[in-house]
């Protein structure tokens, strides 16, 4: 379970270009929920997602993952949370382009605190789950958008995180591929993982259990 309590995010605090992107956002997402985050461009969706993914810090409020307060932790601890609890799927896939699919999927295993045995097997399993095991050895710069998105998802799930965060996972894909990707998220959700998807697409949002709408840094609908 994750809990956001009056989260305030200020970009460039105490500088001329100071900008408050989130003005006290509170929300609670239970384990196994599938949640869509929607809102206009610039509303603060990505900002919220980055805080949830422990990529970004926040200036006010509290953020709990499973009752751990995520604030002012050591860099090592943050890295460990990102590695173990969170699977992040970025809008632009965020793959190391000249690594092969399987090498990309193995990145989180390589950063794991405890040495992972059979990294290859685990990575292959994750690729199989997204239907990409045949292209495991192909360098990512030779994959199509949909294939890249699958590899990104495989990488997000390989370490068996409890929460999968996706920023516009279908933004760059055609309708058919989008549907397939959403199917994947549904499967993951059915297997008990929390899934949080930032999206513009009302179709995508409708497929989720719950919709959180953000406007200008406030939650307007939950």
């Amino acid at each position, binding site marked *: 379970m994750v809990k956001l309590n009056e989260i305030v995010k200020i970009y460039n605090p105490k500088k001329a270009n100071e900008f408050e992107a989130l003005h006290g956002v509170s929300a609670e997402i239970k384990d196994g929920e599938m949640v869509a985050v929607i809102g206009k461009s610039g509303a603060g969706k990505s900002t919220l997602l*980055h805080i949830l993914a422990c990529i970004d810090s926040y200036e006010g409020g509290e953020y709990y993952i499973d009752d751990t307060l995520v604030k002012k932790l050591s*860099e090592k601890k943050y890295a460990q949370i990102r*590695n173990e609890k969170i699977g992040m799927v970025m809008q632009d896939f*965020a793959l*190391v382009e000249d690594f092969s699919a399987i090498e990309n999927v193995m990145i*989180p295993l390589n950063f794991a605190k405890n040495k992972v045995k059979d990294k290859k097997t685990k990575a292959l399993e994750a690729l199989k789950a997204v239907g990409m095991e045949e292209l495991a050895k192909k360098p990512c710069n030779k994959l199509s958008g949909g294939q890249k998105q699958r590899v990104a998802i495989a990488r997000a799930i390989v370490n068996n995180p409890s929460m999968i965060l996706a920023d516009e996972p279908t933004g760059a894909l055609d309708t058919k591929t989008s549907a397939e990707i959403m199917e994947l998220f549904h499967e993951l959700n059915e297997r008990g993982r929390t899934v949080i998807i930032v999206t513009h697409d009302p179709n995508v949002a409708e497929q989720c259990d719950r919709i959180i709408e953000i406007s200008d840094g406030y939650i307007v609908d939950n």
Partner: protein
Amino acid sequence: MILKYGIRDFSRNLGFNIFVIIQITLVFITCVFTSSSVSQNLKYYNAFADILDGEGYCASPYINKLHRIIPSTEIKDNKRFSDYGDYFENVVAVHQIIATGENGSENPYPQKTFAYDGCLIYDYKPIMDNGEWLSDVKSESNLLHAVISPNHYGLKVGDIIKQEFSTSQDSICLDVKIVGMMKDGAKLFGATSDNDKISTVGGTTNKLTAEMLFSNYYSDIAGKPAFVYNLDELEQYEISYITEQKMLIPFRDNLTEISQAEEALDNFTIGAIPFSQIKKNTLSEIRKQIIILISIIVGLFMLTIVSIISFTAISTHKKLKDYGILYICGGRWKQCAFINFIVIAVDLILSSFLTCFVIQAMKLIGLLNNTVVMFTLNESLICLGVSIIIILVSLIMPIIIIGKTQPREIIKSNE
């Protein structure tokens, strides 16, 4: 993981890395040359360091005035020249002996003889090809030891030949065992084969350095190989020897009658140069050498550093996106700076190999016959120091760039 990424990164920028490797190799090679040439120079100086610290003169026997060279039979005590007063001791000189075939026949092994003792045996060792230097062999009865230079006689280490030597009374036939082979061109005290330097030093110039007392000995140029004997062994058999090259003539310890000693010296020598002068010349020569070579190294080093700094700056910028990805997946931001370290470490390792290879190749081709390039502890330490500086420099830009950037900025800038 980080290691793998680093190695990937190396091959991604192969061209530039090769450029850096060549630069580092050049720096390494110059360092090795500098260090070994300086230590070589010091080697000549060190052979006489104790002597040159004291009072005394370097001088040649006065041949013209007396129309003779100085045979030991005439002077008797050629370590102290006591005929000329009680002023000198432990004279350092090269002596020649007369060696013939058995029963005075023509010598089947014509040779240029060098008989050394004292510091010339114990504090200096020419570059050897194989075998041992005279200081490393134990004396054996009825046998002389010799270290020789390359020859056409087919003589090699371990061979024993018969030679007859003139003694004060008659002559003596002895076995001579070849215990060591010098490299062709090894430097010998008092050699003259290609020695323009020492002859121009003459009596007036005062540029003489310790190194100039030595000359390269090339068997072919000299027309015959060098045979180096241990004077102490020769003396056991009362073999006569003559002294005709420059000598280092130290004054007795605590000598007070300096001017009398100088007058005495004038009776049998020419072109006396005080030790203090030689010491000064030698040290200033070494200093000059160090300054020239250091400036070359610094120049090359600067170039290398500039290219490494710009290279790492560019490549870090290019890699920031990938670092962002590693960060999302649980990497720590600082770990990413380490990737650059690996790339440079690979560069350094390859440069070291290349350096050894180039030096070895130059040796094989024979480019280094005249010089003594050695890869000893000193050279390795200097290269290690250079490597550490390069590593530190290579980490500056990544640390600055990565330190100034937040992972989120990189991740966002790609959205």
